[in-house]
């Protein structure tokens, strides 16, 4: 079987600066990949490649066997650490947005029956992330945790093939972070998601992931720090037993 995502000798260079080198790996459907590594190692760059926000300098990235185009599409959902939701839309409007884009190319707005259906769908999705009582609230009135819940609901309404998370809980309080761990684990199981999550918290990486990738430089030239790039130096499969999952959900 072909992997969902497959990196073939991928390099990313900005001018003289090599950020990623020789990245070759596959991501299986249904896996939960945690990505860790020191700051500046290219974790976000790796995510941006999958997202299609930029393309590799060399090498190839395949999704379901076909090369990715360097443009974002609706088969990949994303949640950033910040700015993932639209400040001018309420929670409900933020989620309905995706359905409006799909069904109304010209106006980006739905009316009548189509609108009611979209609102019902979005409301259900918001309920799944625990925001059923905050439908009419603007992001500025929400806590950081609520905004990230909203961003997840917004991404999931499109049923993406892969969900990309870039330090999604980095700015949250420890207690809220635990809640979010439970939420993401539950959604991952219930929706059969494939997730790639960047985090700087190694415990979080092992707790949530079925696989932990560590990005770092294999070689260092002391006279030219930009000469060599980072790659996946460790690739660890994590046995996530059902008991562990239940523990995360119970927290």
């Amino acid at each position, binding site marked *: 079987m072909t992997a969902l995502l497959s990196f073939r000798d991928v390099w990313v260079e900005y001018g003289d600066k090599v950020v990623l080198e020789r990245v070759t790996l596959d991501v299986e459907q249904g896996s939960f990949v945690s990505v860790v590594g020191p700051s500046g190692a290219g974790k976000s760059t790796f995510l941006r490649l999958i*997202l299609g*926000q930029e393309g590799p300098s060399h090498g190839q990235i395949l999704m379901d066997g076909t090369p990715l185009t360097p*443009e*974002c*599409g*609706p088969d*990949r*959902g*994303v949640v*950033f650490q*910040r*700015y*993932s*939701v*639209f*400040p*001018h*839309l*309420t929670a409900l409007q933020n989620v309905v*947005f*995706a359905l*409006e*884009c*799909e069904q109304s*190319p*010209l*106006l*980006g707005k739905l009316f009548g029956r189509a609108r009611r259906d979209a609102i019902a769908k979005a409301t259900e999705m918001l309920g799944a992330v625990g925001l059923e009582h905050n439908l*009419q*609230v*603007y992001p*500025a*009135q929400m806590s950081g945790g609520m905004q990230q819940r909203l*961003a997840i609901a*917004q*991404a999931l*309404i*499109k049923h*993406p093939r892969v969900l990309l998370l870039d330090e999604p809980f980095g700015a949250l309080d420890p207690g809220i972070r635990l809640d979010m761990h439970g939420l993401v684990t539950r959604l991952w199981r219930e929706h059969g998601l494939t997730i790639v999550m960047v985090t700087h918290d190694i415990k979080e990486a092992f707790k949530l992931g079925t696989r932990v990738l560590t990005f770092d430089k294999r070689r260092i030239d002391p006279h030219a720090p930009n000469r060599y790039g980072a790659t996946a130096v460790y690739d660890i499969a994590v046995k996530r037993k059902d008991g562990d999952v239940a523990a995360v959900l119970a927290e």
Partner: protein
Amino acid sequence: MRIVNIRPQRGIRILTGAIPIAIALIAYAVVSAARAEANPHDKVLPTFLAMAEAAWRLFSQVDPRTGEVTAYADTVASLWRLSIGVAIATVSTLLLGLALGAVPIFRSTLGPFITILAVIPPIAVLPILFIALGLGEASKIALIAVGIAPFMIRDLVGHVSGLPVEQAIKAQTLGASSWQLILRVYLPQALPRLIESLRLSMGPAWVFLISAEAIASDVGLGYRIFLVRRYLAMDMILPYVAWISLLAILTDAALQWVSRKAFPWAHGEAK
């Protein structure tokens, strides 16, 4: 306690805010009364009574030569020029600001050109406008539009292109086309900023209006002030200045009100 940490309460704020205004008015009353006593025909600092009389004539009496109430005719003419000029500037700002702010290739094509336009002092092109468009309404309206549009366009382009790139990425992962991205993400976030820069541009807009009217016109608030200046008629000029200021304050309050009502999220308010 450090003075930077003292935060006056609302009542005190109103009181302290009123003090300088009261002092200025009282000082003016005292000085103008003294001058009137020394010379009853003094024109430079008319008393409040003299100004009220002049204002009464201007604002309520029909001028037998024109058959109109002077201040009314002036206000209608000036506000008409101002609103058309400002409307042209606002609409072009919205279109260009969105196009340049959202589309990098438009920005690299037209951005430098607009930057050059923005450094030209608008009053310097007034003679060109007079030559090209004549001395009628068109050149005055054009001066206002040309005078404020480059600043507003640059401001809006900066705002739109400076919106977090995460928003554009997110919208595209949600299936938005370029058009939907502009319509649903950039346009709504551009509008409150547009109102904000319009509020800042109203001051310059009045300056351009009054300048154009002072140079070539036969009706209008600016025309009137510069006309009666020849007779040192401060008793007419000052009420006109107060009237213009009042119009400016009301316009500003109206714009702010519209922005708060239409875009509560931009003011940190709930729906």
